């Protein structure tokens, strides 16, 4: 009876995951979808704690279980509530790493269990299938863990890009050694299985580090999405291990959706997944296009900017990571309102990968109550630029870099960009002339139609608002 109830719990869990994910892909239902999935998860967890039994034996150690859930729950809630909108992508990466580590730990405990169960050391007695699943969970889980931690460090700036010649070969060698070791342990030959097992753990962690290390700048969202998918697969391994359908459904669902999401993101940048993973960004950024001849750029004063914008009939704002860093979204919304008050038509042009994650800008601007209809996706925006008087680029760089269209040597060549040059005037707000996240010079800044407005995005906008009010 109780086991049948547990089965129903798991069934509900699996269905809510599918429905939740479906609803998450539509703006109108997204929030409800997330809550439904969370409710399903809660049911599955509570069901497991109280109803799960193996060989007619219930689970014990309730104190430990509840202790762990309370500790994790409190820290998780606090961290998730406190985190700034700009740090959201890092947070996702960090939580993803926790999931990977969890899967790896399960594998370690289960392996010890299996190992101590064999009294006579004939390793071929370890059930092949179970061992294979344990190893898969261990390898994928630890790669996902160490990779996510590096991605987290990279996004918050504490880990610098690092690569050396032949790194891809080095990575492949690590991976090959991992596979060979796994083969040895599965075949039940040579040496101490425990030693091999923990070598696999160590090498997988190392692989995760070197896998993410050389991948630079603009590609980080893609990597996080991919690691997210890895953790899904690692969770599914747990499903096989315990013959647990909800873990299997949830894991594979995320694994498959994560891969698709990764591909969608790559498409938005017009690059192949292979290209991203081989990390041409990382290699090219130091040697790439830096040597190019620079022209002269011209600066524009705040009061001139205020005049140009107030008397424009259509203004497009192109937000980028600089806006997020400066927390300028509210000021930006205020600028929009004051310009609208003067009869200017203001819209936002959102590049799919502006910021550090797809959708980053939408989330930020939504926080500042910017009307959904004012946000133009790239295709729409590109149609509108030719009728636009002023484009205000706020802390965006690579997504408006014309080199993506014209310079085949550029690392971002082929990425669709916002064609801001079609507009009559382009005003670029940046903190300095330093190149953007991908480390590439931007010719746009030296074009005759472009003027530079230096300073922190928030301060500049506030001053601009004051100037416009004084007109």
């Amino acid at each position, binding site marked *: 009876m109780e086991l049948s109830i547990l089965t129903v719990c798991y069934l509900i869990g699996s269905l809510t995951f599918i429905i939740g994910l479906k609803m998450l*892909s539509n703006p109108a239902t997204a929030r409800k979808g997330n809550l439904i999935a*969370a409710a399903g998860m809660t049911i599955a967890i509570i069901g497991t704690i109280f109803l799960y039994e193996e060989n007619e034996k219930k689970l014990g150690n309730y104190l430990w279980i509840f202790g762990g859930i309370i500790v994790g729950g409190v820290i998780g809630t606090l961290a998730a509530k406190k985190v700034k909108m700009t740090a959201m992508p890092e947070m996702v990466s960090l939580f993803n790493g926790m999931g990977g580590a969890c899967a790896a730990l399960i594998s370690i405990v289960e392996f010890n269990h299996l190992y101590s169960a064999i009294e006579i050391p004939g390793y071929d007695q370890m059930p092949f299938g179970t061992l294979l699943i344990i190893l898969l969970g261990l390898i994928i889980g630890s790669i996902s863990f160490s990779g996510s931690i590096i991605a987290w460090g990279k996004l918050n700036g504490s880990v610098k890009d690092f690569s050396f010649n032949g790194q891809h070969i080095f990575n492949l060698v690590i991976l090959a050694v991992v596979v060979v070791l796994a083969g040895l342990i599965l075949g039940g030959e040579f040496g101490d299985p425990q030693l091999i097992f923990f070598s696999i753990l160590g090498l997988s962690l190392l692989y995760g580090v070197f896998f993410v290390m050389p991948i630079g700048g603009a590609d980080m969202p893609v990597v996080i999405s991919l690691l997210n998918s890895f953790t899904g697969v690692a969770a599914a391994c747990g499903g096989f291990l315990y013959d647990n359908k909800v873990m299997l459904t949830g894991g594979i669902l995320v*694994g498959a959706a994560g891969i698709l999401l990764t591909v969608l993101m790559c498409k938005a940048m017009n690059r192949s997944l292979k290209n991203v993973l081989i990390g041409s960004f990382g290699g090219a950024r130091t040697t790439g296009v830096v040597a190019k001849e620079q022209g002269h750029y011209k600066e524009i004063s705040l009061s001139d900017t205020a005049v140009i914008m107030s008397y424009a009939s259509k203004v497009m704002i192109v937000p980028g990571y600089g806006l997020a860093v400066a927390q300028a979204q509210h000021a930006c919304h205020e600028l929009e309102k004051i310009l609208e008050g003067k009869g200017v038509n203001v819209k936002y042009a959102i590049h799919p990968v502006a910021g550090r994650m797809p959708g980053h800008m939408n989330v930020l601007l939504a926080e500042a109550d910017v009307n959904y209809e004012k946000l133009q996706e790239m295709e729409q925006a590109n149609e509108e630029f030719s009728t636009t008087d002023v484009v205000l680029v706020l802390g965006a760089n690579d997504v408006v870099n014309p080199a993506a269209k014209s310079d085949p040597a550029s690392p971002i060549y082929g990425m669709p960009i916002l064609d801001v040059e079609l507009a009559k005037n382009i005003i670029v707000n940046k903190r300095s002339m330093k190149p953007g996240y991908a480390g590439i010079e931007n010719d746009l800044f030296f074009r005759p139609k472009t003027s530079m407005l230096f300073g922190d995005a928030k301060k500049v906008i506030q001053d601009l608002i004051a100037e416009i009010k004084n007109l």
Partner: protein
Amino acid sequence: MDTVLSWITQHEQMIYIVALMIFVGIEVIGRVPSVLHTPLMSGANAIHGVVIIGAIIVMGKAEPDNYVALVLGFLAVVLGTLNVVGGFVVTDRMLEMFKSKKKSQD
């Protein structure tokens, strides 16, 4: 060969689930607008936190004198909970903004 075949037979249902879920996963998010990429990734991130069920089972099965299993299991439960709770709360925070904006629009 025999072991592989018998393993497949043993896990027939599970293998069916894997095959079907791959298609469901791809189909279900096939038409997501780029606006929702980040929240969707975050939501999916929370869902794979289902790995916590494995952690609970490991923890609950550990013999009370097996400290290695207890400690590792405890750590796994903490990390798994972080993934689930943190994941859902962060996603909700992202989506909350979408909602408040929707309201002001109506």
